[in-house]
């Protein structure tokens, strides 16, 4: 069976080392089980490099010193910074990021649904073309909006300020986020449907309580 693993690295259903079996064993037993089969048993969570890169630190320090407790620096890693803020402050923070730090476009706007804490997170990935120092950097600007059990897109409290006047390039991304998560962007001129069929009547499909067929 181990040769099958080596071939495609994918747990096959017929293999007796299927994950369900493995989970029922204790941790040491599992380790031994895999080691007998010659499979690498590395820890689940990787060990991240500890030192914080200085240039990224200087950017996050600028944001922190300007806004203080309004923003939260989630992590600072090589070429990646993530900050989160309240949805009321996001416009100020975005203007600061654009005008003072030099980020000039949005790469994507991703929504993440957290039904347990009744929130939807909207993450803007911002980058820069003009500033030579920032070309490797991607800054994730996250904010959370309240989430309602029975969504009514556009009319309920799941709404936030659009960043279109700051970063023009978010136009289509925000439209996608609106239809997929039901987050209404105030100030966006064009909150229409984009990808889904015109007669879509179900809840926004990327929410966690929308189940796909057979799952």
């Amino acid at each position, binding site marked *: 069976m181990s040769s099958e693993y080596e071939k495609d690295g994918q747990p096959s259903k017929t293999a007796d080392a299927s994950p369900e079996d493995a989970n029922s064993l204790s941790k040491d037993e599992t380790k031994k089980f895999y080691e007998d089969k010659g499979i690498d048993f590395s820890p689940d969570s990787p060990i991240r490099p500890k030192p914080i890169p200085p240039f990224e630190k200087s950017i996050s320090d600028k944001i922190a010193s300007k806004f203080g407790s309004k923003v939260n620096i989630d992590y600072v890693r090589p070429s990646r910074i993530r900050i989160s803020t309240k949805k009321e402050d996001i416009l100020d923070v975005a203007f600061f990021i654009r005008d003072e730090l030099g980020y000039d476009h949005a790469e994507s706007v991703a929504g993440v649904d957290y039904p347990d804490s009744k929130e939807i997170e909207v993450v803007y990935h911002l980058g820069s073309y003009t500033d030579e120092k920032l070309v490797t950097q991607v800054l994730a600007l996250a904010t959370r909006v309240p989430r309602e059990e029975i969504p009514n897109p556009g009319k309920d409290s799941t709404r936030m300020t659009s960043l279109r006047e700051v970063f023009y390039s978010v136009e289509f991304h925000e439209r996608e986020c609106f239809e997929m998560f039901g987050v209404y962007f105030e100030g966006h001129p064009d909150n229409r449907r984009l990808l*889904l*069929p*015109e007669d879509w009547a*179900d809840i926004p*499909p990327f929410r966690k309580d*929308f189940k*796909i*067929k057979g*799952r």
Partner: protein
Amino acid sequence: MLKEFFNQETAPHATNVLVGKLGEVLVKAIGKPLDYAINWGRIWSLWPVHLETACCSVEFGAASSPRYDVERFGIIEAFGSLRQCDLIVVMGTITRKMAPRLRMVYDQMPDPKYVIAMGACAITGGLYFDSYNVLPGIDGVLPVDVYVPGCPPRPETLIQGCMLLQEKIKRMKGA
């Protein structure tokens, strides 16, 4: 009937009806040999609609490329108006947004028309069997003549599917 024929407004329609009736009479009179002749004409000039529905269109394009050259089997490259087409190759996934449009395209094509379902998605939904926006096959939308399996099918498979369709047309009634 004759009155309609001389009336300026209904004349074109009446002519069509008359020609159609004459054709029917002719077919009934001559029967099988004419069937063969009509079908022979259809087989070697199948015009596909230029409707790409998903990623299988890449392999459809490759089938028209010099290496595979589907034109030598009488399947002409997909360019032109759908009013002159008699073959629709459904290239892959049909989403819920595309399905009504697909039916509209099919309805606008003149008879006789043939449908090839290309790729696993067009047959059963394929890799997207559990997606919320994908139809599980196009059987509910169009009457399919030939299924070409694969994800995506190789151009050879598509050519084989076309040849199967030609075999099928050969055995069909002419009119």
